[in-house]
């Protein structure tokens, strides 16, 4: 009895939802890193590593949001537009002379409004998530355009240097702040997802919405919370965009919602809901980021980059399916024995 407990403890970690995929994909990530390192020695330079991490951070952020939504069994197509909208709102307010931190506050409020709208349309009005967020995607992009009268903003000015350092250019303990921000947000939302009732309910709703309802889970509030998380993450990325450019760009974030899906799914989050962990999202985002960075360094033309990335998305999910099928076979055999 006692001897059995130790491997079972290890087994438990691995049999945790989505852990299998995380392991598979982490191996894939290491392979990629080694390949790119061999192709280009500069790849391992200190500078490129910290640079790369900073490039991955926004993908992790939108990946977190999309993962939350995917786990509830829905999807958020509005992420990219909320990034753009947040970028434009924050920058416009700053160019109009508002205190940057106040502008940040307004930006989060606006993004949360879109998240709330998504959540309500889907959980209360029962719109399919794809349609509801396709609609808000267009609306949020429209807001991004209208907010400064269909122009990118001017520079947010010297007064906003603190803001820009906070979100992008500054370093803390030798790492760029963007990385810390992503890490902090990841820790908070990973904790919520894995260790709180809300998190448990998010999995339950995605796994079987009906059963969750009958068990007293508040479906509408759970789904809405997931969309709010997604909006917060997207808004943060929008602020990072403003910090990067020092101005508002109307088409910032275009197609980020798809990167977010890719990061989540490569990391083992199921588009069918109920399955996945945020650790996987980090790995998924890293694969995406490393591919973009590495392929650019390797001098691959955009065309090749696209083809490689497409193939890798397909293969990584295929791999997961194969691994999962084998695992469930092995498990059935075990039950049988």
């Amino acid at each position, binding site marked *: 009895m006692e001897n059995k407990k130790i491997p079972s403890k290890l087994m*438990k970690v691995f*049999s945790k*939802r989505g852990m299998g995929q995380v392991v598979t994909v982490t191996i894939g990530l290491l392979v990629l890193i080694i390949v790119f390192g061999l192709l280009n020695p500069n790849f391992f330079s200190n500078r490129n590593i910290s640079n790369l991490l900073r490039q991955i951070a926004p993908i992790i952020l939108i990946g977190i949001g999309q993962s939350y939504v995917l786990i509830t069994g829905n999807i958020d197509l509005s992420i990219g537009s909320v990034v753009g909208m947040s970028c434009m709102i924050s920058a416009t307010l700053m160019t109009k002379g508002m205190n940057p931190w106040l502008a940040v506050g307004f930006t989060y409020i606006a993004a949360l409004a879109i998240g709330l709208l998504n959540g309500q349309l889907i959980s209360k009005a029962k719109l399919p998530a794809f349609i509801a967020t396709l609609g808000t995607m267009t609306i949020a992009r429209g807001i991004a355009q209208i907010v400064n009268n269909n122009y990118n903003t001017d520079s947010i000015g010297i007064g906003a240097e603190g803001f820009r350092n906070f979100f992008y250019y500054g370093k803390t303990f030798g790492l760029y702040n963007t990385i810390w921000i992503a890490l902090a947000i990841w820790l908070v939302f990973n904790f919520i997802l894995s*260790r*709180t*009732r809300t*998190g*448990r*309910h998010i*999995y*339950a709703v*995605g*796994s*079987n919405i*009906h*059963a*969750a*309802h*009958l*068990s*007293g*889970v508040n479906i509408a509030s759970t789904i809405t919370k997931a969309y709010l998380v997604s909006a917060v993450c997207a808004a943060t990325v929008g602020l990072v965009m403003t910090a990067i450019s020092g101005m508002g760009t109307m088409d910032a974030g275009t197609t980020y919602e798809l990167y977010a899906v890719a990061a989540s799914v490569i990391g083992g989050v199921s588009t069918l809901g*109920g*399955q996945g962990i945020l650790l996987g999202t980090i790995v998924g985002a890293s694969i995406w980021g490393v591919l973009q960075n590495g392929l650019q360094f390797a001098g691959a033309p955009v065309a090749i980059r696209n083809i490689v990335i497409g193939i890798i998305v397909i293969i990584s999910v295929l791999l997961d399916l194969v691994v999962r099928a084998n695992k*469930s076979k092995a*498990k*059935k*055999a075990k*039950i*049988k*024995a």
Partner: protein
Amino acid sequence: MDNYIVELENVYKNFPGVKALDNVSFKLKSGEVLALLGENGAGKSTLMKILSGVYTKDQGTIKIFGETIDDMNPVKAQELGIAIIHQELNMCDHLTVAQNIFLGREVTKKGVLSDKEMNDEAGKILDGLNIDINPETIVGDLSVSKQQMVEIAKALSTKAKILIMDEPTSALTSKEIDDLFAIIKRLKKEGHGIVYISHRLEELQYIVDRVMILRDGQYITSMDYQDTSLREIIAYMVGREITEKFPRIDKKVEEKILEVKNLNAGKMVRDISFSLYKGEIVGIAGLMGAGRTETTRALFGADSKESGAIMIDGVEVEINKPIDAINSGIVLVPEDRKKDGLCTKLSIRDNIALPNLDIIANTLGIVNRKKEEEITTKSVDNLNIRLANAETDADSLSGGNQQKVVVGKWLVRNSRVVIFDEPTRGIDVASKVEIYNLMNELKSQGIGVLFVSSEMPEILGISDRILVMADGRITKELDIKEATQDVILEYATKFDKKINEQIEA
């Protein structure tokens, strides 16, 4: 006596166009098991869903422990000590057993989930019920019957004083049913009130104190179980006498239609060999998980098989996909009609036409709508399916009528062998008899009928020959004359292989 713990008075409930409950009153005492009986669609589940707050009543009063409750909802019901095991499984497949048991009322410390505590607690609950499942198992990996046991454990874990069980046994094995009955007796002794809904009337004798009968949403009668008989209960349920619960026709057995030789498909289908003759119904008996469904699916080409031969009229046929089976004259009425049988969003006409498009459409694949109409009408008339018109969604039909559509779509073509997998699960007495008559009709037409069922009386009542399966193998073939419940059970529990494997391991 005033120890009523539940009093529902003059309850009404309308669904769009359906009077599901029409002035129904209902009382439950502590320490009693009340059987709530009635045909499909009588309103049993609806009444219990109102009691447990899933639906809201249109009119009427609800009193729990003498206190009037106006705004019942699932959370409040739980707080009041009402627990319900729903007719359908309601489990989150991706969560563990413990997570499911505590869903919606998770134990937290300062807002953080205490998984260890919940696992320990769940382990105790499962042990107390004699259920051998690790609380950290993912529910989706459990068999259906185990999931049902978890569902029961979940309901009991709330320490509810009022327990509602809506067809809890329809997916359980006989050992589990015995365990459940023991639990029910214990809870009764502890003063719980239990509402028990089932279409398996023979179960009632072991546990029930009182019965209450609904028909078409109306209260019919209630009485002590002691003072009544099954015959009387059935008469109240269907509103008329059912003369024969298991109509049997005699027919001379003629030539062999189907022969299966050494069929192997995965762990659940090992070395299956049997024959089926013109003019007989062959029943396949066994416990849940014996591999009967897998056998029918492999035979029909729905799952891939490793080896084995299938012969029709002595000629070997190649079956790799359902369409091959259909073309060879073998058709399957699957066990789960919602999941495998019906396209619920499509019309009844579409559903009946679907497997027959090869007949209905011309060589170019163009559908002949006149022919389609003819075939649909014929099928609806033959089976006496009650419907508004054939254009309505299959979803709108009652369970029994849905089952008839699933059967009916196969009967318009000239099949040689019809396989029924649990055709009467969750269906009321009267509809069951209609299904039996249908099988008899096929038998008399010379069509081979293969019939999987978990209900002993039905297997014994309808089959001409019985195959008993255990652990993926046929352990015995019995002529109906030598078959009894005991003999079947003896062979259904022959787990030699399993024991051997355990020794090896």
